[in-house]
């Protein structure tokens, strides 16, 4: 059943803007190329040439698969080599001699405690990943929260509410925001926003997780907004018309029909945003203070996994214990973001299938 809808011309999807390389609209309507029946009638030389060209193109197409595979192999090859020198338990925490004051004897006694510390440059290096994971989450969770809320509102506005002219201006503006190099956002956070936040919150640390999260959300809002917009636009027009026909207002239609229908796509947008937030490097390197602490205080300095790699890899000797430990951090980060990307992709694929009514 196909309903021909002459109205809502601006909804005619001649092209949904992909946010600078994010999930693109797939040409689902186009039929798959016919089996090369015509090619079979070609004579030897030409047929061979056509075949060779197709193979050449296939080789280029496989490059992406190859690169992903190589990233896997080389990250884990260098990362798992860490286990030659480092016990697996050390990535969680290690024994540390800590002096404790004994009031009865008035002396300090050394006790061995289990400490969760990332301190690769010391007499007995410590490689606990927990402070880094703590830091990454303390930046990525608030950033995702901020950018999902704002990105959702922006996406709804662009897809459902804005007039065509406003949208034609707002969409490129958001894309341009997405195109600003992250090092520049990090720089502005470091020089301007950090002082501003400190003067408001009177926090002890000028550079902290919250400043980092603000910067990271600037990068992720465009991602979430465009993906939300794509998801909302994928909702078939008859659903909206039916809602209007029942007497619903525009906002009632948006909030009770369109958004619920696109909820999986919006969830995927949030998940992808979270993956991006975990992987963001330059902003957190410049704006979060880089102190590897275990803390729940968002106004405290933190150190993320990405910033640790960026700050330390330049100074370590190749093949050293710390070098492999940093690759292990990278492999962990890659695995986590890969899982999130995959989840989002599965959700989107399922939604596309379901909405193709």
């Amino acid at each position, binding site marked *: 059943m196909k309903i*021909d*809808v002459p*109205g809502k*011309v601006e909804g005619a999807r001649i*092209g949904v803007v*992909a946010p600078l*390389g994010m*999930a*693109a609209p*797939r*040409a689902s309507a186009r039929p798959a190329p016919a089996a090369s029946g*015509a090619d079979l009638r070609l004579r030897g030389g030409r047929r061979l*040439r*056509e075949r060779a060209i197709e193979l*050449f*193109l*296939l080789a*280029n*197409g496989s490059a*992406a698969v190859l*690169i*992903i595979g190589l*990233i896997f192999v*080389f990250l884990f090859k260098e990362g798992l080599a860490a286990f030659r020198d480092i016990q697996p338990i050390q990535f969680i925490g290690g024994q540390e001699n800590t002096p404790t004051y004994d009031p009865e004897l008035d002396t300090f006694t050394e006790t061995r405690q289990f400490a969760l510390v990332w301190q690769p440059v010391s007499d007995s290096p410590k490689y606990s990943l927990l402070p880094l994971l703590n830091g990454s989450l303390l930046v990525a969770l608030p950033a995702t929260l901020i950018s999902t809320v704002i990105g959702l*509102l922006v996406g*709804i506005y662009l897809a459902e509410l804005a007039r065509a002219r406003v949208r034609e201006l707002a969409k490129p*503006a*958001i*894309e*341009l*925001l997405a*195109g*600003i*190099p*992250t*090092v*520049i956002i*990090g*720089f502005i956070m*470091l020089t301007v926003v950090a002082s501003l936040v400190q003067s408001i919150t009177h926090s002890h640390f000028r550079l902290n997780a919250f400043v980092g999260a603000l910067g990271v959300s600037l990068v992720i*809002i*465009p991602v979430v907004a465009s993906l939300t917009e794509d998801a909302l636009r994928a909702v078939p027009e008859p659903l909206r*018309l039916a809602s*209007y026909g029942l007497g619903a207002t525009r906002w009632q239609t948006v*909030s009770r029909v369109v958004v619920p229908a696109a909820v999986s796509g919006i969830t995927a947008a949030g998940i*992808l945003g979270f993956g991006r937030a975990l*992987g963001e*490097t*330059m902003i957190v390197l*410049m704006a979060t203070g880089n102190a590897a602490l275990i803390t729940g205080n968002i106004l405290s300095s933190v150190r993320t996994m*990405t910033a640790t790699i*960026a700050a330390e*890899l330049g100074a370590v000797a190749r093949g050293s214990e710390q070098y492999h430990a*940093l*690759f292990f951090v990278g492999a962990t980060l890659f695995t986590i*973001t*890969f899982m999130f*990307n*995959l989840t989002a*992709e599965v959700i989107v694929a399922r939604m596309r299938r379901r909405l193709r009514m």
Partner: protein
Amino acid sequence: MEAKIDKAPPKAPEPPSRRPDYSGLIMTSLCRGATFLVGGVLVLLLFHIARHGAGVVSWDFLTKAPVEGMTAGGIFPAIFGTLAITILMIVLALPLGAFAGIYLVEYAGGGLLARLIRAAVNNLAGVPSIVFGLFGVGFFVLFVGRNIDRGLGPAGRSAIEQALGTGGGAAETGILFGQPIMLWAAATLACLVLPIIIVTTEEALSAVPQSHRDASLALGATRWQTVRDVVLPQARAGILTGAILSVSRGAGETAPILFTGCAYFLPRLPVAELFGVIPMVNPLDQFMELSYHIFILATQSTDSQATLPLQYGTTLVLVALTFMLNLTGILLRFVFRRRLARLS
């Protein structure tokens, strides 16, 4: 059942209701407010950078090298390095990405292989940039580079050095390719922008009406002739858009090049004279780069307050560069879509 709506309203009709739709009004303004907030932040950001950077950027700033331990002088080597590496990057990435896009749209259909490639492209787009940096070190510098060095042998290494006229004693040290150099930084960035190029190429090709392909095939053209002579000419602008957006992205990335070839400070430009006559960019040298320069000045310098004007100046140059590229890309895509919409 054939439902044909003859008089569909161009806009959603507001039905008569007993009371005004307050929550709708509030939420609509909230959505509008959020959009304008995002736009406002962009304008504020650009305005702030322009205000603080405009006084610094001068002809000398753009054409002179840094002096006095990078506390004064210009940023020419960083501009040169940024241009050199992005050109090298796009030379590596564009053919690969464009051919991959052609394969996906024109040949692959919806089969298992195509799904696998698309999944890889999507996941590649989500790989954190610092992971690309690690990959660049582990794969390009240490694996590919060191193996090329081994394969060349002392004679091969010194032959290349002599051809370039650089002479760093690679015959004895054994290291020519197996170190952080511009070539590997560009290759790492090429991996990073590959998904952008593939996706925009796909979009550009998919926008070409199927009837044009059918007509060409019906006239007896082979599939490749159809792609080359009918589809590609129409999709060229779209592919170019992808290339421009990639260059912009590559010019702004810092994390992937941190360990793959970027230099804190380089007293020379990364250039060489091939056989002593042909001047060229030396891809086997390190380089300075704008975004890394900002990072260094802002975080690693002993007195970052003193170099604040330099930081703003460099930021303005980088923003102007990426902004212009993105704007060009977006406008080009707009024109391209218009034209194709008229076609189909």
